[in-house]
């Protein structure tokens, strides 16, 4: 479980997120949704320690990550996995080497054990047999799955996904969503997904935080997101004709 308490972050005096409070639950896909530029990625970067907040706390199982010394933060970081928007795969390494990287760096596993783990993970994300390909040789969807494979290769406790299906066709996007959902359950991870894709919200949004203009505007679940009284959320959810039509029919 991860809890954020009163998180505020400013850049050059400009407040990007303000007083955000939320509990991200273990074994669930926790979604952070909101319009582009509302502060979703900033919150995520604060949570993983890439940005230092101006105030507030990020509690991993009750311990404040911000107040930890470098060594303690390192311990937490080894339990994190992150899927970046564009994959962030290491260009100079093959798919197999990318997935194996965290194992090489932080485990004492034998080469055989590492190979076994890599093959298991690649099979799990449906990339078996692609071991020797370089990131430049992968399609957009494959890159996301490869990024996911690397993120979970060390069986992390916490999985962060930054807009995992941006730039993907709807069918591939659903495959990625389902994969994230299944892996969350399989490895009992605390999963945090940033998205502004309503399909993802309806598919996997077990717990949702809606950010509007840098503030936590609404919290709920995929069941309640379509029936909220919140004006900003309503405008976000039903911003497309498609969503309005589908909802009226449904």
């Amino acid at each position, binding site marked *: 479980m991860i809890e954020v308490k009163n998180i505020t972050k400013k850049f050059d005096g400009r407040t990007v997120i303000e007083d955000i409070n939320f509990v991200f639950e273990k074994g669930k896909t926790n979604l952070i949704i909101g319009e582009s530029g509302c502060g979703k990625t900033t919150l995520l970067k604060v949570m*993983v*320690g*890439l940005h230092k907040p101006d105030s507030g706390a990020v509690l991993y199982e009750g311990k404040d990550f911000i107040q930890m010394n470098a060594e303690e933060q*390192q*311990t937490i*970081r*080894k339990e*994190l996995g*992150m899927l*970046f*928007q*564009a994959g*962030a*795969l*290491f*260009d100079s390494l093959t798919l197999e080497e990318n997935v194996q*990287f*965290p194992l*090489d*760096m*932080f485990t004492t596993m034998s080469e055989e054990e590492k190979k076994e783990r890599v093959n298991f993970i690649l099979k799990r994300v449906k990339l078996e047999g692609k071991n020797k390909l370089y990131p430049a040789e992968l399609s957009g969807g494959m890159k996301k799955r490869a990024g996911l494979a690397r993120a979970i290769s060390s069986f992390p406790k916490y999985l*962060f996904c930054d807009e995992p299906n941006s730039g993907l066709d709807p069918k591939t996007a659903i495959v990625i969503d389902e994969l994230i959902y299944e892996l969350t359950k399989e490895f009992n991870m605390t999963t945090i997904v940033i998205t502004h894709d309503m399909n993802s919200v309806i598919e996997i949004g077990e717990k949702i935080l809606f950010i509007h203009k840098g503030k936590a505007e609404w919290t709920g679940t995929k069941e309640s997101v379509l029936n909220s009284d919140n004006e900003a959320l309503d405008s976000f959810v039903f911003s497309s004709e498609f969503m309005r039509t589908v909802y009226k029919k449904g």
Partner: protein
Amino acid sequence: MKLLYQLGEYVLLMSRVFSKPEKWSVYKKQIIKEIYQIGITSLPIVAIISVFMGGVITIQAAFGFTSPWVPLYAVGFTTRESIILEFSPTIVSLILAGKVGSNIASEIGAMRITEQIDALEIMGVNSACYLILPKILAAVFINPFLIAISMFLGLVGGYVMGIAAGAVTSYEYIFGIQSFFETWKIWYAFTKVIVFAFIITSIPAYYGYYTRGGALEVGKSSTRAVVMSSIMILIFNLIITQLFFT
């Protein structure tokens, strides 16, 4: 003010670079990769430049010494002194600052803008140490060999082209390059090589690491890296020369 800020940032980065690696076995593999990337791939350009420059220095020296009082073996002596003291350690390092420096700055810069460095940090890897330390160690190790090869090929180039141009005889050239040899000049040359190797890897790495923005900024970082490395090579060349010669 900006230069001071950058200097502070560079020092802080270097303090992260020279911290304890997470796992030496992974770093060893990286160092070997970098030795190939920085050293072995630079060999062809270094060899070509050295042979031709050796030839040019010999011909210029031969035709510059018009006085009958200057013995012809002075051509070999001048070629050796020019190559060992200045051409191979300094000029070749300046060329490497262009080739290796731009490569390092753009590689690390591209990793920065595509969030690969963030990915390393989130995993708990000291990205500065992992990305930069192997490059510095590789260059400091391989560049002296590269420059030694450059010195040898420069002298060979001088011999071949000097004779081909009729500027010097084989005996006089070989006698010249063996004359008045002082060992400390080799120490001087290789001290410069090691300092320059550090400059041409650490400065571009700094510019790459702090790249912000997109592809355009990667290009700008690469240019700034080469310019700054070249300037620093010239400044340290002067400082080391002053220290050795006075």
